[in-house]
């Protein structure tokens, strides 16, 4: 059996790659995809710990996270589509109306 720490390390690496993706990319779709990757990394962490503690609550929580992620992607992509239609750009630095 693979030790739980290995799964947690992999989850940390994937989460960090997601964070880096959000920080260094300017295409709004890629940023969104990096956020989804972060959510998946946390899901992996939950499932690994659920097996470690032989507690099914971790898997139920993952189910809830998946539902929330699906709803968030639907609404988020609708917003992204509206913004891109208005401004005709997918560069997130062009969405700066609230800039001071």
């Amino acid at each position, binding site marked *: 059996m693979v030790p739980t720490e290995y799964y*947690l390390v992999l989850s940390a690496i994937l989460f960090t790659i997601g964070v880096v993706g959000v920080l260094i990319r300017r295409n709004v779709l890629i940023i969104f995809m990096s956020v989804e990757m972060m959510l998946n990394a946390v899901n992996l962490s939950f499932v690994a710990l659920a097996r470690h503690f032989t507690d099914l609550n971790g898997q139920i929580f993952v189910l809830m996270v998946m539902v929330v*992620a699906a709803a968030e992607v*639907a609404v988020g992509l609708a917003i992204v589509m509206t913004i891109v239609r208005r401004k005709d750009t997918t560069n997130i630095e062009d969405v700066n109306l609230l800039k001071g």
Partner: protein
Amino acid sequence: MFLFIVFALIAIVAALGVILSRKPVYSALFLLLNFCTLAAMYIMLQAQFLAMVQVIVYAGAIVVLFLFVMMLIGGGELSDSRKKGASLRGWLTWPHVTALVLSVLLVAGLIYGLIAGTLAPRQGNAIAFGQGSVEAIASVLYTEYVLPFELTSLLLLVGMIGAVVLARREA
């Protein structure tokens, strides 16, 4: 163990492909690969139901949604290219350097903490785990977690209404 290493490498390379690809469609396909690899890992972690839900919801719906949106709004791969051409000096601005340094520190710290035992999870009691099958999750989901389950259906309804309203063209 060997299988875990293979899946882990694929997941990491796919994740790097998501954030480093030139074209957003390639990123979406790398993301699909990442999701499927995670589904394989869920099976290794005795969460078979979650693995199938992962494939259906994440790989089968969310990535498809991304691809549809890219088809509708054109992806925009040119908007992310550097204006001065592909130079390493031009890329090393302070936000990029900070992001890289912090992420390396995060990963290094987490790995050290987990391997050296300071962040190690304690072994819990062996309750009835139920092998992650559909019956086991259903027996918990519809008894102990029936309220969150109903609330998630409400959440999905609200999300659907919001998405339809937001994506409407001005009639």
